[in-house]
């Protein structure tokens, strides 16, 4: 038996392929949009993964350190370290700011990492080039997305840092690349104003008679010194011993240290459920619209393809072809169109993904779901065309 669908496709193969490719581009955009959403969620997850922590200890009643600002004293980690079940506690600071290199600057999340050796919580878990920080000051490990190279001299506030290592996919929840610098520098960077602001503050303090007393020499200096030092960090990253559960360790910190503690699941909830919730919904909305538009376009294409050959269908009916054969032809064509579209779409999406400024994550499960969605849409779209085809009057073949 000859395949009616195959013969028909071969008859107008150019048109068919180009329609398939056009449809593919549309599916590609839809897949990419799904990838953008997955990428946003993944940004949040890698942020948590890369910190290497099981618990985040932050200022009481804040959603810090990523979703809200949080500030806790930098010697607090010692008392947390002594609690049962705590394997490691490390200070960390996060600050999104412009990092300058030469004339240009890059938006980056500056992470202050506690002194120690590689593998300490907060440190970059792996590098793609260079080495980890060894000096306690003025060295930086930057994400490759910043465009920095090894040996570059970057400027954060008024200090210059040498880039000694590069990372990949170390980003903040909003996708800004990270720059890791030693904690003490980061504390300073977080607090340090520009020189003009410091001078003005000094002048203001000097003009305040309460601080500038002739009878108490040295008071003004002490006040200014205390104004320009910073002993705060944003969070303490806690790694727990494997025999303890996160809740067991978190509870005493909440109760006795009177701080807020988040475990991994809660942190994910904050990042995914709160921080990127609106933008994720925005993307999801877009995704839904694109899917609907794609479905409509597939339906129109199949409908018009069928309408184009309504005469031939009438002839087929006239020579006594069964309805099943005609429906089968239209359905098969729709499915083949869908498969070509999906293949082209998947390829386009994969090659387009790295071009996006923010991370686009194409999950295999999304592709599989996408494939079935395309198939279902094609089947539904062909139903309309089939109805049209079956209703056609065989007389039309002769009339006209």
């Amino acid at each position, binding site marked *: 038996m000859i395949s009616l669908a195959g013969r028909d496709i071969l008859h107008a193969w150019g048109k068919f392929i180009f329609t398939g490719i056009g449809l593919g581009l549309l599916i590609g955009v839809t897949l990419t949009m799904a990838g953008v959403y997955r990428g946003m969620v993944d940004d949040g997850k890698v942020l948590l*993964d890369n910190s290497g922590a099981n618990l985040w200890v932050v200022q009481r009643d804040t959603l810090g350190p990523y979703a809200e600002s949080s500030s806790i004293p930098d010697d607090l980690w010692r008392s947390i370290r002594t609690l049962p079940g705590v394997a490691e506690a490390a200070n960390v600071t996060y600050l999104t700011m412009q990092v300058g290199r030469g004339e240009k600057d890059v938006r980056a999340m500056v992470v202050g990492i506690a002194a120690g050796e590689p*593998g300490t919580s907060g440190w970059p878990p792996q590098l793609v080039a260079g*080495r980890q920080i060894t000096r306690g000051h003025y060295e930086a490990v930057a994400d490759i997305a910043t465009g920095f*190279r090894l040996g570059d001299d970057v400027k954060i506030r008024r200090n210059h840092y040498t880039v000694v290592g590069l990372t990949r996919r170390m980003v903040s929840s909003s996708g800004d690349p990270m720059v890791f610098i030693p904690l003490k520098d980061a504390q300073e960077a977080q607090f340090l104003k520009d020189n003009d602001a410091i001078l003005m503050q000094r002048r203001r303090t000097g003009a305040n008679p309460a601080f500038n007393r*002739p009878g108490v020499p040295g008071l003004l200096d002490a006040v200014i010194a205390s104004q320009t030092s910073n002993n705060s960090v944003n969070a303490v990253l806690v790694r727990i011993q494997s025999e303890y559960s996160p809740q067991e360790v978190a509870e005493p910190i909440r109760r006795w240290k009177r701080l807020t503690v988040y475990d991994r699941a809660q942190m994910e909830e904050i990042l995914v459920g709160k921080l990127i919730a609106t933008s994720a919904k925005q993307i999801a909305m877009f995704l839904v619209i694109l899917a609907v538009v794609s479905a409509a376009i597939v339906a129109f294409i199949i409908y018009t393809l069928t309408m184009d050959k309504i005469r031939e269908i009438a002839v087929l009916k006239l020579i006594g072809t069964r309805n099943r054969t005609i429906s089968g032809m239209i359905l098969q064509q729709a499915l083949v169109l869908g498969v070509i579209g999906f293949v082209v779409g998947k390829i386009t999406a994969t*090659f387009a993904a790295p071009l996006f400024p923010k991370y686009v994550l194409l999950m*295999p499960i999304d592709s599989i779901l996408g494939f079935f969605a395309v198939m279902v849409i094609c089947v539904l779209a062909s139903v309309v065309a089939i109805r049209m085809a079956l209703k056609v009057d065989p007389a039309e073949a002769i009339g006209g």
Partner: protein
Amino acid sequence: MKFPPLQRRTLALVVIIIPLLLLFIYVALRSGPLAPIAATVSTVESRSVAPALAGIGTVQARFTYKIGPTVAGRVKRLDVHVGDIVKAGQVLGEMDAVDLDDRVSAQQAAIKSSEAALRQAAAKETFAQTQATRYEQLLSVRGTSEETVVTKRQELAVASAALVASREDIVRLRAELEALRAQRGNLRLVAPVAGLVAARDADPGTTVVAGQAVIEVIDTAGLWVDTRFDQISAEGLAIGLPAKIVLRSRRSQAVAGHVLRIEPRADAVTEETLAKIVFNAPPVPLPPLGELAEVTVQLGELPAAPTISNAAIRTVDGKRGVWKLVEGGLTFTPVVLGRSSLDGLVQVLEGLSVGDQIVLYSEKTLSAKSRINIVDRLPGVSP
């Protein structure tokens, strides 16, 4: 031939469909979570590392002399300005004497008056002596009464006592004059040592409290860098170790120095060890006090041991280790790390032996099941 048009069409279709399918298969396997992770591999080498400690500090003067009055007063004049080189004993300025000079004059007059009084007492004593001697002689020839002689003797004793009192009074007044002069001298601000005027905190006419510094002189021969080392990386810091000092204003040149002293008290708040690093020879020109300096203290070279780059270290389940390549697969090997150098080399005490292949850089976090694709350089990293 019956089918040429159809065959050509089929051929064209195949030409389009087959590459599309191949591309699709490639895309499905080579991207996303199924793709192998690009990684670079390095070999554990036996080499010696020279650990060094890095710290930052500020240039400070070892000896700072704050010169000011010992009593409250007003600054009368200052002869030096900031930056002047002064000699030991040089007068730098003077406090206002107010009434001190007048009191010195009064004292001098008082001494003169007292000297006159002394002469008067001396004359009285001489006269009393003469009278006493004369009446003694008269008594011996019974020419006068005993009572008169006793009176004369008493007058002599009184005159002698008055003379002693007058003499001592002069001593007192002279001592008082000396005291006034000493006070007067104390109003001069004198450099205790040779050095450089670093600050002039009050100008003439300013009233200062007792003990407040008016002029600050520093000893230029004794500049040091007050350096802070993070306690976690201060192992091996010892007196006498050579150090390299890089001043913020002279980033390209390193000045040689050595560790003079490690402070017995560390900074408990910032978790830093404090040490004083002195210059081997004072830098020329002299750096300003308070300038930031980066200090690198070089420790001795350690014997050769298996050494890896610190970029190879990973943490898996709270354990520190490296991914070792064993028969094409990955095995996580916990390691015990020894000393490290500032250029990122770290010695491995346990867990690895020379010649082991380990993963140095990787695109993503690895796991034991990861497939890796060994490359020379990770994509995106420029040479």
